[in-house]
């Protein structure tokens, strides 16, 4: 096994967008680089496999972007979704750098296309990858191979030798054997800990057993934990994760984007007691879809059901799993193993509370209920056209916010605030620095590409000195 026996300028832990951007930037700066990807070649790239676009600031429309997206507007959007939970200096630096990353990625082989059908709201701000995230990864890996970067698959970092903030070597496990790999610098770009159910249970208790993980099963937070245990400072709320409501029939891991549901605003959502628990019509769907993961997580057994009737079945994206249908609400309840009386009471109560209005799902319309707790404040229409349908949903965890603290060079900051001698972080493992809460489409890739590129350049510079 050649690649694990050499000494490198830069060791990159991880194999996703941030890791590859770091590796490529470091190699282009003249460094020798090893990428240790825990997954097999097919599953390489972690959650990047499931992504589809990147949010970059730009001053003018491009071939694939419909208009300018100034830095200031990007920052305002970030402030809005994080509700101010961000490191402003770092965030502004990221946004400024994103402008050149927009052109840098195509130079590494990545191809863009105009926004996908059904995502017109992102056509100005987000560059979509032609063929999706795996296509993007394939391009980056081909570039990395052409640059002579060593790539080890199924190679997990199981230990880190760190002395007083200085990285010395990493223990890599591959094919059951352990290899001590020495490198002048370390770039940690290996994700958060959302796939580690035991860790999630520390904050969520047994409810975490009912969480589904939307992406890779490999983001177990092993390296994150080792770094924090060895004195690296932390930021970001460890108890929080980004979650959306996804189909309860999805696999435990790696179901990706296609298990999502965007039908909430067209119907009602009930819990296992057949009770509504939140305003389904609070706001335009893209602004609200991300709250439903948490809402469902707070319901008994972490399960809920989106209910709608046949008048709306073609108003949202076709779904992976078919809706469960029945000619009456009672029969539907039986199929969902809900109490038929309770569900019938909830639906008839809802129907009775619907006020007259003009339905328009593209605006905050005036169709609402009156007198319910909670009311549905927009797009409220009676469920009366048989057959009736339901999608069972569970919380689908996307990523975690707990992060290693970094400075503008992406250099890790130790607990005492001193910068590490030779350790850098990029991607989800440090996302919590700029993304204290919330999320906006494409920002994970911005964090990965921008801080990955910085980490690679800084690590290469560090290794030379």
């Amino acid at each position, binding site marked *: 096994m050649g690649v694990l026996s050499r000494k490198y300028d830069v060791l990159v832990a991880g194999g996703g967008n941030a890791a590859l951007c770091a590796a490529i930037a470091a190699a282009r700066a003249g460094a020798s680089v090893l990428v240790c990807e825990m997954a097999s070649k097919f599953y390489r790239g972690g959650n990047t496999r499931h992504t589809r676009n990147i949010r970059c600031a730009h001053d003018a429309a491009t071939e694939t972007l419909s208009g300018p997206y100034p830095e200031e507007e990007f920052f305002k959007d970030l402030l809005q979704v994080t509700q101010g939970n961000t490191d402003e200096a770092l965030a502004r630096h990221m946004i400024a750098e994103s402008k050149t990353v927009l052109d840098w990625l195509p130079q590494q082989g990545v191809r863009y*296309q105009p926004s*996908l*059908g059904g995502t017109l709201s992102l056509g100005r701000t987000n560059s979509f990858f032609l*063929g999706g995230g795996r296509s993007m990864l394939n391009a980056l890996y081909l570039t990395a191979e052409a640059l002579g970067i060593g790539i080890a698959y199924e190679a997990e970092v199981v230990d880190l030798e760190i002395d007083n903030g200085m990285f010395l070597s990493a223990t890599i496990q591959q094919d059951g054997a352990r290899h001590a790999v020495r490198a002048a610098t370390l770039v940690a770009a290996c994700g958060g800990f959302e796939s580690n159910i035991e860790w999630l249970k520390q904050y969520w208790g047994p409810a975490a057993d009912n969480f589904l993980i939307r992406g890779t099963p490999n983001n177990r937070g092993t390296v994150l934990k080792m770094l924090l245990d060895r004195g690296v400072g932390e930021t970001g709320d460890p108890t929080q994760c980004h979650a959306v409501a996804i189909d309860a029939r999805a696999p435990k891991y790696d179901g990706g984007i296609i298990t999502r549901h965007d039908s909430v605003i067209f119907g009602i959502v009930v819990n296992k007691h057949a009770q509504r628990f939140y305003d389904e019509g609070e706001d335009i769907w893209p602004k609200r879809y991300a709250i439903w993961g948490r809402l469902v997580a707070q319901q008994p057994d972490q399960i809920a059901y989106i209910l709608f009737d046949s008048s709306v079945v073609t108003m949202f994206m076709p779904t992976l799993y078919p809706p469960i249908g029945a000619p009456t609400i009672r029969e539907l309840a039986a199929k969902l193993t809900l109490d038929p009386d309770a569900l019938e009471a909830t639906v008839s109560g809802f129907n009775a509370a619907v006020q007259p209005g003009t339905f328009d799902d593209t605006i905050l319309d005036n169709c609402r209920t009156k007198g319910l707790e909670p009311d549905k404040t927009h797009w409220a229409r009676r469920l009366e056209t048989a057959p009736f349908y339901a999608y069972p949903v569970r919380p689908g965890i996307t990523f975690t916010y707990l992060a290693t603290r970094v400075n503008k060079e992406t250099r890790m900051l130790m607990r005492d605030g001193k910068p590490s001698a030779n350790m850098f972080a990029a991607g989800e493992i440090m996302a919590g620095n700029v993304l204290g809460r919330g999320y906006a489409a494409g920002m994970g890739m911005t964090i990965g590409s921008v801080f990955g590129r910085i980490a690679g350049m800084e690590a290469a510079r560090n290794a030379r000195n």
Partner: protein
Amino acid sequence: MLATEKAGARPGHHASALLAEADRLMTVCNSCRYCEGLCAVFPAMEMRRAFPDGDLNYLANLCHGCGACYVDCQFSPPHEFDVNVPRVLAQVRNESYAAYAWPRVLAPLFARNGLSISLITALAVAAFIFGFVGWHDRSVLFGTHTGPGAFYKLMPHAAMAWLFGLVFLYAVVALAMGVRAFWRDIGDPVAVNSGSLWQAMRDAATLRYLDGGGIGCYNHDERPNDRRQFYHHLTFYGFALCFASTCVATLYHYAFGRIAPYPWWDLPVVLGTVGGIGLIFGPVGLMVAKLRRDPVMVDEPRLDMDFAFLAMLFLTSLTGLLLLLLRATPAMPMLLALHLGVVFALFITMPYGKFVHGIYRFAALVRYAQEHRALLGKA
């Protein structure tokens, strides 16, 4: 049914388990749509929410098999969603050829296509050899013939023209009946407008969708270094030039009274030679590419259909070029029998072999151009 256990499966009726699997895949893909910039299949899919068999046959024939969606897909095997669009659409496509074959009674020729085509070719070559032997004595069969009318000493021009004219006519009628059935199956009978036809001709002539979304096709791994588009161009345009050569020669014969063989610099020979060279290298390149292709994307049990057609094109060209080179030697009569036998078999089997892929794909491209224009409001 093979699909009901997996994500994306829908209850519903399909003519085969394969079509049910294609329905499942299109359902998965329609909830993802990452591939919509790669080719025409995915935009066409997005215009639908459900996938009856006719639509699946349409999408399958629209697919050029570039492989990009397989390499780019986060759900391709070994992922449990098992999304393998290139292979399943290749299988559906190959099944559809038999389903639309005319007359129905000859559809089984697709089942063991390599064997069928080999037997028909052998019989055709034998028939020409026996015909020549039966009609002529040794001095003609093994003699040297040169000058205008040399070929027709072995077979009168009128007999040749009638025989091949009839065979060609039969092939055209059988293909037309097949396309008619396909066209009725894949959508509402809309009148074809000239804009869509022109668009489809350009898309077919340039193999627009055999380019992996712009950087080239995928064949044996995730590198877009496949040359099938190039070799297909050699094959297609080689075939077209050979066909043009025949047309010019026919025109020479009837309109100008100029009798074959023609000198090497004359149009029929130049067209035939250039086309023939394309028809040597094109099929060989395509065969090599097929052998190198990642088996996971291939409809392996029916690869013999592809090889049979490529071999027929190759043999047509090879025997034609040999005939040109050796036409002034005693080998000419037997080479002529061989060449005519191969060409006869090529034409008679056109409606029952891989040749039909071009016809159905073109029809699918016309349909897509129509749909696309209608969506943009240009129809």
